[in-house]
Each structure stands twice: as C-alpha cells, then as structure tokens.
C-alpha cells in the first residue's frame, strides 16, 4: 500500500537525521566542542582593488594606492583593553578615541574591528611589530582611490564614497551591501558595476591567544575592471588650465567618431577629499557652494545658446528653400517684428547668409526665422539633436529644451507670437542647450552631415566598446553645408568677423561666437567651432558662464589651441 511506503520513507529520513546527529555530536563532538569553546572561527575580509581609469594613451587618471588599516579581533574585555592601550602607545593617540572607534566599528565577535584607517607605512610597520606580543591585531592593506593629477577631469571621473540609502535600495539585488564604496557621478557611477572589486577573505581558526592556527577557507578577492577613456590627459590639462578661475566648460571632440578628447569644467573639486577625509568640513562646504563645483556643466548645465544657434537656423532655411545663397536682408541696426523693435549688434547693411554668419547679424536671422516659422525651427533643432540627451555614456545628462508653438499653447496657454520666433531664431527665449549638444551640432558641419553620438569610454578591460547609438545622418544638401561652413570660416578669417582673434594660428579654425543673454547676470560667452577648416576633424566648444561677450570665449579658445599645438597633442 502506498501509505506504507510514505511511512517507510519517513522512518528512513528520521534515521538519516539521527545518524547524522549522532556522528556530529557524539563521534565528532569533542572536535566541535573544542572549536566552539575557543570561539575560534574568525573572518578576515580582504578587499580587492577598484578598476583603474586611463586616458586614451594609457596614462592613469584614477589609480589605487595601498593604505593600511589596523584590524583588531575582539577578545575578552580585559584583553581588548590592554591591547588598545598598547596600540595607543604606538600611535600616540588618545586611548578614549580608540575605545570609541572600537565600539563604533564593532560588527560581530567573529569579525575583526577596523580600528584605525589609512595608516602611513611607517606606523603600519611599527604596529606590525606589536603582533608578536598581541597576535589578535592585523595590518590589512586596503586599496584606495588616488588621483595622480588631482582635479584633472574630476567631473568625467566622478568620485567614490560610501553607498547612500537610495543607491543601496536600487542596487541591493546586484549584490551591493551597506558600507560598500561606490561611484558617485561620472564614469565612477555609470560604470560602477565594471569598476567594482569583489571582496574575498579568509576564515581561520585561532587559538586562545588569537593566533592563527589553521586556515579553514579562502576566497580570492578580485579586482575591478580597468576603463580607458577617450580623454587625452594633455589636452584636458591645457583646457582646464585655460579656464583657470572662470566658471565654464571646454569640450574638444572628434567630429567623426564622437570621441571626447577633453571635457573641462570649472569650478571643479578634488575627488580625493572623499577618500582621505582630512578636513571634516571640506565635503559639506563643497555641497553648499553656490558655484556648484560638482556640476558637470558640459552635460548637465542648460544655457541659452545665443548666436551659436544661427548655424542651425541658417542651414534649415537653406535646406527648406526659404532663402538661397543670394538672398539678402538689409540690416539697419534692428528690425520691427509686429510692433516691437528687435535690435542688432550694429548696422551691417545688406547681408547674405555667409556674411550674416560672419558678422552674426541678428536682423538677417530674425527675417529668416520668420520665414521658417516657429515650428519649422523646432523641427530642425530636433534634427540637430537638441532637446534630448546626446547619450554620451555619462550619467545625469540634461536634455536641454526646445520650445515649439504647440508646447507654448499647451503648457503656457498662450499663443506663439512672431516675437517668439524672432527670439528663437537667434537662440534666445525659451531655448536651452547643454554645451555638449552644441559640440554635437557643430560636428555636423565639420563631418559634413552626420549626427554623431559622443563617447567617452574607449575600452573596458582592453576590450573596445561599441557606442550604444550609431551615428545618424542629418540629411543636408552638400551645398547647404558648404555655405554654412563658409560663413563659419568667415567668422575667423574675415577681419570684420566676430571671431577674428582666432586667425593666424597654425591651424585654420572656423566656428561661431555667441553672446547669450542670461537672466540676472552677465551674458554667457560661447565659441563653438571646428579645425582644421579644410579637413575638419575636431570640434571645440568654449563656454564661459556669465563672462560677458563671446569675444572672451574666442580668446580662451585661442589659448587652448595654442597650447594644443605647442604640446603637439593632435
């Protein structure tokens, strides 16, 4: 009968348990009793090293240094007390502070307590000599982030810190634990999964004095994977030096494959303050700084593009047949749109598209923009990749904002006026872009028609990675691109051009200046261009926040290019 079989099965199972029980507690009982009386299983975690970050030539930008931590195995209270006092003697610190550290970092009686962090090599050696008398202390090498170049590319790298509550809730299923060190911002955050090391460690038996008598188990720690960036440390340094104290950003990008060679932001921060923690106020001060030193302005800052945007408007008008190469508008220092006067920077007289770009004539573009209409400009701005993130592999990228008549109707309950179109066509009004979006837009004219996806990570563990998005074509006529390029070249080559200061370099530069009015403050200064003109390869963007005229951006761009040329970086 089937029930009998089940009963039989249960009898067997209970017999199995009894046998096992007998063998554990009676046969091996003595052995286990020994183990338990000595409480002798101890765990010693051994951290691996976080992956390093290189520049495109293999120069290490974020490295690991060994720091030494002092670990203490918990013993009986009296023993711990005497151990602490002898450690205090060697370190020359207060005994009370060590006691507090001990209590604060205590996890369980089987795990060593991390008593002192980041010891110098000499103290570590001095403490290691104590080990003959006090076997329960351990000096553990602990790899920590170090930044050979200090602030260099800090916004691209991000920083490392103890995991916060929000990230922990998101990342727990991937094996993250409290007190883990994870990346915040930049590559450190986006590629944390790859950079992350895995903890290994020993479990071992100790005798009554805390001396290791036998290793029970071992698991090798594994290091994180190294990441190679497209950044060129030399160019990056030139860019950062030329920004000096001026708030702003400089980007240099390869116009064909989207590789970012430099992405400098000022103000920056020392990522090492999160590792060393020498000054307790340094971190809170930085978070409260109104200049937002942690902000990666190149991708997260949103600004009006000003005249830079005229290149888009001009190309769109040519493309749609609203104007031709020969279309001329008369500039008399301003023009009436509706019954409001819209000003120009000076009186340019009769201008065609090339001259209008060269002189940055507002009137020409007011007129052109009105021919295109608001939604026409909107459509073309979107084609140039504005209004959405560029997908450049860095976290926290802003999408910017491109207004349209429809948006205004729906969100502001107001009609779109011709005045809005006029403002829109010179890159003012509601339009907001990130500097990287401008670089990408300019790259279209440099590479003659392709919208590239910027990339900043070249390889992970020496394996080249393919960008998430492929380049797309903007589908412009070759003539359109040629006319705009001539206009952009005129900006530099013509003595009346707004960027003439950039002429006379060993490289021929073309580009567009911009002086974008900013609410409540000085104007933002822009220069976005490409070089060399004949075989355009690289795009450069200089953006100075609240610096004033676009001319200043051109001066900075000149210094950067001089630095790049004299350093033979390209």
């Amino acid at each position, binding site marked *: 009968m089937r029930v009998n079989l089940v009963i039989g099965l249960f009898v067997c*199972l209970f017999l199995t348990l009894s046998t096992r029980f007998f063998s*554990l507690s009676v046969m091996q*009982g003595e*052995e*286990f*009793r020994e183990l338990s009386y000595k*409480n002798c299983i101890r765990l010693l975690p051994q951290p691996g090293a976080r992956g390093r970050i290189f520049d495109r030539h293999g120069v290490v930008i974020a490295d690991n240094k060994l720091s030494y931590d002092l670990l203490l195995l918990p013993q009986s209270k009296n023993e711990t007390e005497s151990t602490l006092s002898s450690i205090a003697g060697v370190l020359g610190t207060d005994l009370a502070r060590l006691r507090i550290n001990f209590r604060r970092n205590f996890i369980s009686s089987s795990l060593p307590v991390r008593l002192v962090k980041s010891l110098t090599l000499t103290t570590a050696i001095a403490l290691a000599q104590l080990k003959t008398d006090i076997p329960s202390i351990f000096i553990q090498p602990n790899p920590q982030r170090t930044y050979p170049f200090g602030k260099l590319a800090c916004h691209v790298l991000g920083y490392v810190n103890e995991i916060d509550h929000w990230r922990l809730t998101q990342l*727990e299923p991937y094996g993250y634990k409290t007190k883990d060190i994870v990346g915040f911002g930049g590559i450190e955050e986006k590629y944390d999964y790859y950079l992350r090391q895995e903890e290994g460690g020993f*479990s071992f038996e100790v005798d009554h004095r805390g001396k290791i008598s036998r290793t029970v*188990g071992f698991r090798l720690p594994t290091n994180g994977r190294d990441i190679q960036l497209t950044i060129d440390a030399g160019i990056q340094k030139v860019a950062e030096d030329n920004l000096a104290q001026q708030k702003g950003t400089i980007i240099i990008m390869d116009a064909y494959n989207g590789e970012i060679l430099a992405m400098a932001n000022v103000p920056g921060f020392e990522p090492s303050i999160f590792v060393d923690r020498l000054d307790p106020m340094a971190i809170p001060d930085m978070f409260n700084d109104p200049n937002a030193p942690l902000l990666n302005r190149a991708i997260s800052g949103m600004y009006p593009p000003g005249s830079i945007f005229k290149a888009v408007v001009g190309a769109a008008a040519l493309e749609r047949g609203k104007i031709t190469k020969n279309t001329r508008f008369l500039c008399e220092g301003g023009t009436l749109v509706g019954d409001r006067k819209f000003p120009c920077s000076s009186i340019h007289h009769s201008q065609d598209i090339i001259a209008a770009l060269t002189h940055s004539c507002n009137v020409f573009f007011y007129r052109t923009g009105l021919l295109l209409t608001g939604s026409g400009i909107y459509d073309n701005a979107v084609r140039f990749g504005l209004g959405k993130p560029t997908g450049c592999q860095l976290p926290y990228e802003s999408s910017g904002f491109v207004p349209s008549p429809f948006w205004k109707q729906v969100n502001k309950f107001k009609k779109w006026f011709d005045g809005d179109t006029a403002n829109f066509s010179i890159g003012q009004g509601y339009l907001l872009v990130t500097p990287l979006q401008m670089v990408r837009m300019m790259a279209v004219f440099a590479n003659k028609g392709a919208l590239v996806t910027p990339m900043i990570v070249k390889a992970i563990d020496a394996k080249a990675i393919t960008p998430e998005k492929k380049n797309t074509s903007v589908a412009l006529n070759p003539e359109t691109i040629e006319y705009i390029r001539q206009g952009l070249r005129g900006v530099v080559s013509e003595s009346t051009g707004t960027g003439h200061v950039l002429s006379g370099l060993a490289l021929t530069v073309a580009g567009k200046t911009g002086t974008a009015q900013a609410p409540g403050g000085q104007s933002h200064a822009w220069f976005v261009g490409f070089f060399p003109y004949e075989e355009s390869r690289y795009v450069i963007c200089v953006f100075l926040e609240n610096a004033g005229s676009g001319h200043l951006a051109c001066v900075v761009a000149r210094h950067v290019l001089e630095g790049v040329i004299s350093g033979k970086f390209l």
Partner: protein
Amino acid sequence: MKSSFLMILVIALIIAGLGIISIYSGTYQKEGSLWQLTYQRQILWVIIGLVCFLIISFVNYRPLWDWTYVLFGVAMVCLLLVFILGIVRLGAQRWLRLLWFNFQPSELVKLSVVVFLARYFSRKSIDDIGLISSRLGMFRGVLLPLFFVGIPMSMIIEQPDLGSGLMVLFTFIAMVYLAKIKIRYCIVLLVILLVPIPFLWQMLRDYQKERLMVFLNPNIDPLGAGYTIIQSKIAIGSGGLWGKGWLGGTQSQLHFLPEAHTDFIFATFGEEWGFIGGMFLFVLYFLLVRQGIVIARRTRDQFGRLLALGISVMLGLQIFVNIAMTMGLAPVVGVPLPLMSYGGSSVVVTFISLGILSSIDRRKTMF
C-alpha cells in the same frame, strides 16, 4: 477515541515549550527590549494557536470541503497582496502587515494547498460511489492540479522564498502519489518536474544559487552563505552527548550563529541539550507525524484521509528539511521548524493543522 486528541495536544505543547525556552536562550543576551520580548511574543502565539487547536478539533472539519475554494482564494489574494504592499525584510518580501503583527501568507498557502488537493482528489463520480482519482487520466490527474498548485508555488518562489515553494511542491508530489493516481502518471509527473531544473537554475536569484553551491562546499564562501552552515554544525556538534545545559550554549549565546531563534533554532536546542535532548525531540516529532498517518489510515472519509495524509507529509517534510539544513545535509532554504521556530504565522497555522487532524479522528466513524 480520545487518545489521539490528547496525544497530539501533549506532544505539540511539549515541543512548543521546548521552542520557547530555546528562543529565550537564543535571544536573551541580545541588547534591546525588542529581543527580550521575543519569547513572550512566542508564548502569546502558542496560546493563540492552542485556542485555535481546541476550537477546530471540536468542530466538524467537513465544512472545509465546501469552503475549500474560498480558503484557496483567500490564500491567493494574500499572496498577491504581499507583492503589492508586502514588507521587505532580510531581502525578501514575504510579510503582510496586519493590525499589530506581521503575517506570512506562504504559511497559509501551504495549508490551503493541502485542503485543495484533498478535495480535488476525493471527488466521487455520480453513478458510482467509488473514488474517481484512481481512474483519472494524465490531464485531470496530474496536469490540472499541477497548474493550480504551480501558480501559488511560483509566486512564493518569486518572493523569494525557495524553501516554502519547494515544500508546496514536495507535498503536491506526495499527495498525487497517495491519491492513488496511476503510478505511470506519477512517474510522468516526476519527469515533468525534473526536466526543467537546468533551466530553472538560470532563473534562481544569485543568492539562491550561491546557497546551493555553498551547500556542496561551505568553505568556498566562508564569510557569506557558508558561515551559517559552519557555525550551525559547530553548535550542534559541540553539544555532545548531554549538551551544554540551558543557557550554556556558546555558539548561540555569543551570536556566532545567525537566525538562532528562527530557522536555526534546532542548532540552539542541540547545542544546549545534546544528542539525548535532540533524540527526545526527534521522537516527539516522529510520533506527531506518525499519529497523523495513523489517523489517516483509520478514517473512512476519503477527503479526511487525504487531508490527514497531506498535513502529516507537510509537517514531516518541514521538520526533515529544517533539521537536515542545520546539520549541513540540505541546502539553506528558509523553512521554519514547525512549533519551535519563532514566528506567529507558522505556529498558528501548524496548530490549526493539528486541530484539523484531531477533528478528522473524532469524526472518523461518521462515514
């Protein structure tokens, strides 16, 4: 016969009592009043369980037949609610907040699956008073019930609570077998369940895989999953023949043993009461399970018979898996030790199950 009622009652109370003193021992050294109160809460749960046991054992169990689908439905709704508003604790979403306590629906699901299967397999045909289960074909005998059991089971595993899910599965296999489904269909069922195992392995959570791997060799991860097994074995082994005496265990007292008052309570018990105490507990558990099967054999009502068998099998499996896991014979999956482990849902549901057993025995001659 009065004796089975008394026997179940006495055995259950002794086991629950041993559980309470072990919980006390496992928690009294921890700091914080919350831990100090753990054993008092367990006493409250045992009293509530006892009341349920007494009421149910004096009430006819036959209405369960009519209420089967309601019970099953309620259990499923609770399980669904866990996903929507469950409380996340120890990395799993298994609990529902009810008034002032946390309720673990998977415990209720275990019982309701047994009741459901008992009813399903004890239907009779209209023109013949014989059971139809022995004549059921592949579809209605195996696949259809597998479907109904599979839904709550996969939901429990998804919580994730691999242990409770597997309990439901094993009980299902045993009940199909005991319901006298043709033996070749039983074999087909086993094959159906075994074939996808390599694929299911891919779907397990990392920590579940790790636990299964560590079961094979605890020393590969001495700091993580292997730690509990090593400590638990040390605790049980160090108890020796006579044990270290109540409150004398060093493994559990000094917090070397995680979960000393829930899933690993047998290690706490074994350390303090030794081989002799542990064997005493084994005998009690064995008698309890045997009593359930004895009741099943002398019951003429098919529903009652299958119900009693299902409850006994479920209890026996949980006891075996839990103790085997503390001794390193089975992978660490979260299965409580019935009547001993701390946890209101488990204690009360176990007492209810025992009440049903007793009620079945009381009415065995009515049919």
